[in-house]
């Protein structure tokens, strides 16, 4: 109920902003800024409903072993959530793999809870009337790094490999339109149609602000989204094949983007277009 009410108010606000956003660039930029400030108020950000659902899921006993995720080690020790997201993706010795938060959660579900993750993966992206455990858990866990700085781990050889491959993938062109990430995110102040594009090819402010604001509640989709969904959607626009969920290239790109964003402050879930 509360969600629906918030949702429709946001939609109306968004439509108003967009319809005259087209008239003058400067004016629309300012309007969008004002709109952002307005919807950044946690009380009116439906993304926090995902945080609440995630909290319940985290302590719920599930799987063949009937245990909760509270024994899951996200890098700082079993069950320790404060600041864990800020240091992800990172190398996990038990899995012998660099993992982002979604990969790690799936690993814990399988290995700790003995949960068959097929259904969880089928619901990886929420839709109308279909919640996503992974989106909710990421919202809850990432929120516990608020106010902290992005501090992705780059000391283990596998972490360094991830960063290097992520960078290579960022600049790798292909598909029927010869696009790479850099085609759309390689310069300052560019836009596609009217959508502003952050420059992620450079370390610094734009990368920091971008990576520090995911997961986010996307008003246009009426859903909380994680970086997995953002990159899935960008690969769609890039005219590349469907990327496998929670797979290595996505994690490599996330490591690279977080490297560009080192030191950026996390404030999530944010709310965006």
């Amino acid at each position, binding site marked *: 109920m509360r969600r629906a009410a918030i949702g429709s108010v946001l939609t109306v606000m968004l439509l108003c902003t967009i319809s005259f956003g087209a008239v003058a660039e400067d004016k629309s930029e300012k309007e969008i800024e004002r709109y952002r400030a307005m919807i950044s108020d946690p009380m009116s950000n439906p993304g926090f409903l995902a945080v609440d659902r995630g909290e319940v899921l985290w302590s719920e006993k599930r799987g063949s072993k009937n245990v909760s995720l509270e024994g899951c080690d996200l890098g700082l020790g079993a069950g320790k959530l404060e600041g864990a997201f800020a240091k992800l993706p990172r190398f996990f010795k038990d899995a012998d793999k660099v993992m982002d938060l979604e990969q790690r959660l799936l690993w814990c579900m399988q290995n700790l809870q003995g949960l068959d993750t097929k259904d969880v993966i089928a619901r990886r992206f929420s839709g109308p009337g279909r919640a996503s455990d992974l989106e909710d858990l990421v919202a809850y866990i990432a929120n516990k790094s608020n106010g902290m700085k992005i501090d992705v781990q780059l000391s283990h050889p596998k972490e360094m490999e991830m960063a290097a491959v992520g960078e290579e993938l960022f600049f790798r062109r292909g598909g029927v339109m010869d696009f790479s990430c*850099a085609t759309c995110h390689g310069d300052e*102040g560019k836009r596609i149609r009217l959508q502003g594009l952050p420059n992620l090819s450079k370390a610094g402010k734009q990368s920091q602000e971008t990576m520090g604001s995911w997961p986010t509640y996307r008003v246009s989709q009426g859903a909380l989204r994680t970086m997995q969904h953002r990159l899935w959607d960008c690969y769609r626009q890039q005219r*590349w*094949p469907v990327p*496998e969920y929670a797979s290595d290239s996505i994690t490599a790109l996330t490591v690279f983007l977080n490297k560009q964003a080192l030191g950026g402050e996390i404030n999530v879930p944010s709310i965006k277009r």
Partner: protein
Amino acid sequence: MKTILKTAALALVVAAGTALPLTASAQTANTAAIKHPDAAVVDAYLKSTFGKAPPEWQARIEPDETLKTCNHFRNDVPSAEADKIIKRELAKVVFPADGKLLGDWKEGKKVANNGRGGQFSDNEKTVSGGNCYACHQLELAEVSYGTLGPSLTSYGKDRKFDPEEAKQAYTKIYNSQAVVACSNMPRFGANKFLTEKQIKDIVALLFDPESPVNK
């Protein structure tokens, strides 16, 4: 003596200011040596992420000779490499058999506005569009345009509707890299994304005096 130096310096500044970038990304001057990870390692990552896609989709992200070079230099290709690319890509351009380069601008307008096609969310019935507005301004009345490429307003008019210029535009749209090596613009004809007819219609959008682009 002093004045000579000053004039020389001024000439240099002017020359630097007006020099046109030779490649699509020369302005970024990414000249520092680029470190590339081992190709086999990158392939393993790609396999784990895209390996389940249909074979024809996987073939699309296999870089051809030109993209291999662009990827290696991150588009900032040295001029010798740029020459090779332009020569190779120019050979791929197929001009209309009847020699007519201008189609119907009204149809071209639809193609320029259509941003669909080629995405994994599309189906076989999706008609591919040129998506020109994603990157270019064209007719002034359309305010929703992107800025990844230069504005093309008044394009034909500014070129006095010169048929040679129209041929150059056809070439550019058919294969952007036949004109600028490692251009960020798609190679619409060469990649078989747009048909010859669609390209002629877009050339008309740019070069027909009646086209809103020239109003």
